[in-house]
């Protein structure tokens, strides 16, 4: 498939080949699924909603519920007021959610539908039952990426729901970013081990990684409750993980409810997890328990056992900006060389931060925001790497270049582990080490000549 990839790199302004991003609404839908009892609603044509549900289902292997305004030509000419009003009436009548989280699409954005006004009118007309909520986020598909859609819906949760009552609650907010349910589960486990009460939103654990019971639950057990998100305004502090996915929501909460925030990166690897644990510890005024120290010690032990296999390995990374920034730091902790790092999402903060991380240690590293996998592949053709880390789409490149490959990020459409094992925290780092080492050694075992084929490694 990639035999058309050439080594000559031409500047492209009009053309996207094999993207490393997708559009805002899917991020908003994923975030909305992290509210308990929430029906995500796509205000656009049917296709958008169908594509997002299918895509999320391919990644999570779980049913994904969401409704659509089912735009027609009429709605596109006269505006989507009637569709959204009717949709809200139908959703509450039949599906009976606690809350509906509306996100827009390119269609409704270009038409210019004023969602807050439509929601207000729908409430006046009795389409929204008392005690039920509707929130919204603007998520034009022609701006940003899926990460921005996630951030916008998370910020909408703060804007619409969080309140300051004046009584400070003994709890810390965690805004986890666009990570897996397994990662969110891990954050809760770490907090529980430290004896810290947290409010995490969104929280898709037990929503998109639920058990098989044989019964169908439209609203699974998991998700941050509206009451919890409301109470975030009374928390001691907020720990926000990831500049792109979480910091805006934390800053909004800071200005709206005066909840101080720690603006951290995703806790991938030793130092980043240290900073996360330390932030939680500091705000909650607890000691780091022995169990967490033990996990850290075991991770460092594993790193020392295996560091000779990672040293100096040239790595190409593509992913969402928060993930790439955090993973790069972990790769450096393993003394690997992240020589090519791209994200499909636009945003200067990515390149700035990546240069801070890499300029002194890997001065020749190629760093690019708003890039695509075609370009990454061209770079790799010019300067081969030892390991490729991307979402599933990188498998075409890995095959074409016969390079060890680790799947990381969103989406993963062809493997299962991401649904069960976190990549954040000390435990998550051990999983990443396991995956990277296996990829490197499996490749060597398959390709080396007989006399270099080793039993013990």
């Amino acid at each position, binding site marked *: 498939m990639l035999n058309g990839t050439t080594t000559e790199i031409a500047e492209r302004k009009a053309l996207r080949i094999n993207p490393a991003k997708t559009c805002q609404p899917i991020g908003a839908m994923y975030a909305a699924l992290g509210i308990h009892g929430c029906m995500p609603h796509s205000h656009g044509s*049917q*296709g958008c909603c169908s594509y997002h549900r299918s895509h999320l289902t391919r990644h999570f*292997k779980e049913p994904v519920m969401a409704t659509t305004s089912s735009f027609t*030509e009429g709605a596109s000419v006269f505006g989507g007021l009637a569709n959204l009003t009717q949709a809200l009436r139908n959703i509450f009548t039949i599906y009976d959610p606690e809350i509906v989280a509306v996100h827009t699409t390119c269609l409704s954005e270009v038409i210019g539908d004023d969602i807050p006004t439509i929601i207000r009118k729908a409430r006046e007309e009795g389409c929204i039952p008392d005690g039920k909520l509707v929130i919204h986020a603007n998520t034009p598909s022609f701006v940003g990426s899926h990460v921005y859609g996630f951030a916008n819906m998370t910020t909408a949760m703060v804007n619409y729901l969080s309140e300051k009552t004046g009584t400070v609650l003994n709890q810390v907010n965690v805004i986890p970013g666009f990570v897996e349910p397994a990662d969110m589960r891990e954050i809760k486990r770490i907090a529980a081990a430290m004896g810290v009460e947290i409010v995490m939103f969104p929280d898709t654990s037990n929503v998109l990684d639920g058990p098989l019971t044989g019964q169908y639950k439209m609203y699974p057990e998991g998700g941050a409750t509206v009451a919890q998100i409301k109470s975030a305004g009374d928390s001691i502090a907020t720990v926000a993980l990831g500049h792109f996915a979480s910091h805006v929501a934390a800053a909004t909460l800071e200005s709206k409810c005066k909840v101080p925030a720690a603006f951290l990166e995703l806790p991938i690897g030793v130092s980043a997890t240290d900073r996360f644990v330390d932030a939680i510890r500091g705000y909650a005024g607890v000691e780091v328990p022995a169990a967490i120290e033990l996990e850290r010690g075991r991770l460092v032990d594993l790193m020392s056992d295996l560091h000779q296999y990672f040293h100096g390995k040239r790595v190409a990374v593509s992913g969402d900006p928060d993930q790439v920034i955090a993973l790069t730091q972990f790769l450096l902790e393993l003394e690997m060389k992240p020589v090519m790092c791209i994200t499909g999402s636009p945003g200067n903060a990515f390149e700035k931060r990546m240069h801070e991380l890499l300029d002194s240690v890997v001065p020749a590293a190629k760093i690019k925001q708003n890039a695509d996998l075609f370009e990454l592949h061209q770079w790799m053709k010019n300067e081969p790497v030892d390991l490729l880390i991307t979402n599933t789409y990188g498998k075409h490149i890995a095959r074409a270049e016969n390079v060890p490959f680790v799947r990381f990020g969103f989406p993963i459409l062809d493997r299962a582990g991401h649904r069960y094992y976190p990549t954040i925290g000390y435990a998550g780092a051990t999983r990443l080490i396991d995956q990277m080492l296996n990829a490197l050694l499996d490749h060597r075992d398959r390709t080396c000549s007989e006399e270099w084929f080793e039993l013990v490694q």
Partner: protein
Amino acid sequence: MNSDLNLLPSRSTSITEVGAGGGAVVCGKVSLAGSVSQRACVFCGSRVVLYPIADALHVVHGPIGCAAYTWDIRGARSSGPQLFRNSFSTDLQELDVVYGGEAKLERTLNKLIDRHHPKAAFIYSTCIVGLIGDDVGAVCKRVSAAKGIPVLQVQSEGFKGTKKDGYKAACEAVFRLIGTGDTASIGPHSINLLGDFNIAGETWLVREYFERIGVEVVATITGDGRVDDIRRCHGAKLNLVQCAGSMTHLAKRLQDDHGIPFKKVSFFGIEDMAAALYGAAEFFADAVLMERAREIVSGEVARIMPQLRAWRTELEGRKAAIYVGGAFKAFSLVRALRTLGMRTALVGTQTGDKDDYEMLREMCDPGTIIVDDSNPIELAKFCLEQEVDLFIGGVKERPIAYKLGIGFCDHNHERKEALAGFEGMLNFAREVHASVTSPVWNYVPRRARPKSRETTREGNAA
């Protein structure tokens, strides 16, 4: 227990029960605003139909999502070029929405055609293109003139109808290619296969059957499709239309403009595959063809029947739910399941029409539920009420079935094994049997039978 599984009152006319009387199934409507519809859009319809044309360039003109969600998701195999599996798009940004995306599209096309030298290019319009008013047709014309290949606009703005309208737009785009190739060498016993997309190599299987009986296959549209074959496909004497929902429009156009008759066929299941072969032989009124068709059918049936019978003993009396895109596939599946001794307890489609539902009503046993444009809540409700053992559907239905503790067979884009033809019937039966009888369902609380654990243990011990 499942009290949250209610039906929308306005949906009741789109649901019927065989044997319970009542009027026709109301269908072909735009989905209700606010429903969890399983349906997609016009763009989706066009994209799935044209995507398998392997030596063409496919460019999505719109924001990134439409390109990203349709990138290499369809297991349509190509025996040669793999160009079609890449994702090319204009990735429209805010400024393009304000100032228009025509210039960007033109630059994109020029660059891609220079690099890949495709035989033709399809340009898919998305919602936003319909709103900002880009003159895609004019761009296509200019690029086509400059590069000397057909550059075809696909009018697939998402909101301008349903998935069916997308099929139609795709057919119109393909139709503009037809009639431009040389038909001189095409023989008298020649056909086109329309509406098979070579998922998991199905077109290859079916094509081989026809070639074995002595029928020349001019073009496969669009599975393992090639632009040059399509350009000369008007030289064929008969069109066989498999996915009737998507390709009947093209068949009609070929009949009207080129005088080629068409037959609706299905390649799923023994009966339908055999009928398709006999139908072609009958059409050409050639005893030799018919004789060879009989030989193939009897040989293949004899080959697969012993295994099918063995599986049938374990599947006898089990119940299935079917929810697929088009009605023609549903008909075939009802018959194929019957071959395996299974009863269809629920059947629905995204795009069936009134006649299709009448046909289903006649085919299915009393008590079978029939639905148009359903949603997960309805599907779950009926699966539980009917106590089905198997669900046949696509990507969105699979996890719902599993959550209910029900076996599943993908009969959509993501099937990994060919399900068409005689070999496909064997694969289908293997998948159905494996999933329905999987021990995993014994561990599902709802379906766990008393003592099932002990049975398993004894089984293991033995």
